[in-house]
């Protein structure tokens, strides 16, 4: 059985990591989670990003967060990638599978997945 006591173990494990992590996250991944995003399927996209970023060992480098309506609801689910010194990348009509590829190729490999971006996607 999972219990609150297990959180103590998580805390103990994370003690050193928390200090190390401060200020090192240099890529910010933001998922639109307003009504439009949620209705279009943003919840599983977000869950996949959180999971894959951790599985790829990118937790120290990448933060996954949520935001409200980005303003182009017809393209939801939308994922934006912010990286210091680079242009913002806007991925549109995302799915869990597309999110996996973005983690692998863009966040890990450093190559933008052009066909999923707002400029590169095809109807």
């Amino acid at each position: 059985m999972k219990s609150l006591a297990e959180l103590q173990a998580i805390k103990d494990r994370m003690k050193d990591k928390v200090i190390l992590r401060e200020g090192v996250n240099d890529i910010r991944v933001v998922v639109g989670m307003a009504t439009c995003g949620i209705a279009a399927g943003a919840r599983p996209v977000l869950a996949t990003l959180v999971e894959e970023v951790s599985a790829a060992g990118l937790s120290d480098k990448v933060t996954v967060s949520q935001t409200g309506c980005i303003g182009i609801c017809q393209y939801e689910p939308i994922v934006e990638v912010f990286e210091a010194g680079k242009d913002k990348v806007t991925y549109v009509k995302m799915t869990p599978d597309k999110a996996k590829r973005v983690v692998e190729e863009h966040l890990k490999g450093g190559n933008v997945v052009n066909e999923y971006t707002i400029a590169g996607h095809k109807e």
Partner: protein
Amino acid sequence: MKELSLNILDIAENSVKAGAKLTRITVDETEESLILTIEDDGCGMTEEILKSVTDPFYTTRTTRKVGMGIPLLKMAAEMTGGGVEITSRYKDEFPDSHGTTVTARFNKKHIDFTPLGDVTESIATLIQGHPDTDFLFTHRTGDKTVTLDTREMRAVLGDVPLNSYEVICWIKEYLKEQYS
């Protein structure tokens, strides 16, 4: 919305935006009915705003106080012969007891009842997005109660953020085990 749990995620976001410190999400189920209550201690709404929240055309881009969230929940509830009720106490009038309560009633036997879906995923998503506010989730079905209180978690975790990957995984497993 394909699942009611997505409406829960959406409506609870309003509570967070209203500055709630604690948002109580309660699902009460019987054979026939499902009652969803989302109760927060956020800033609340004036009577004027409260009257217009169910109007999808009320929102303007500059104020963005509400949007399609409540209308979609209302539609889902009314399709089953149920409905949505909202009460609110605005902070200027009730400085010590402000907040908003949204109650949605559904008739589960109705053919247009939207299934609850993956509520565990919605609760985990809420906490991932808002690690600094508290949520109390309670799901009662017959004699079974599933519950999660982030205040209890915070008491153990101290300064470890609630949106840490390990903690989010724990939340999902903790709820899944209670459901099984």
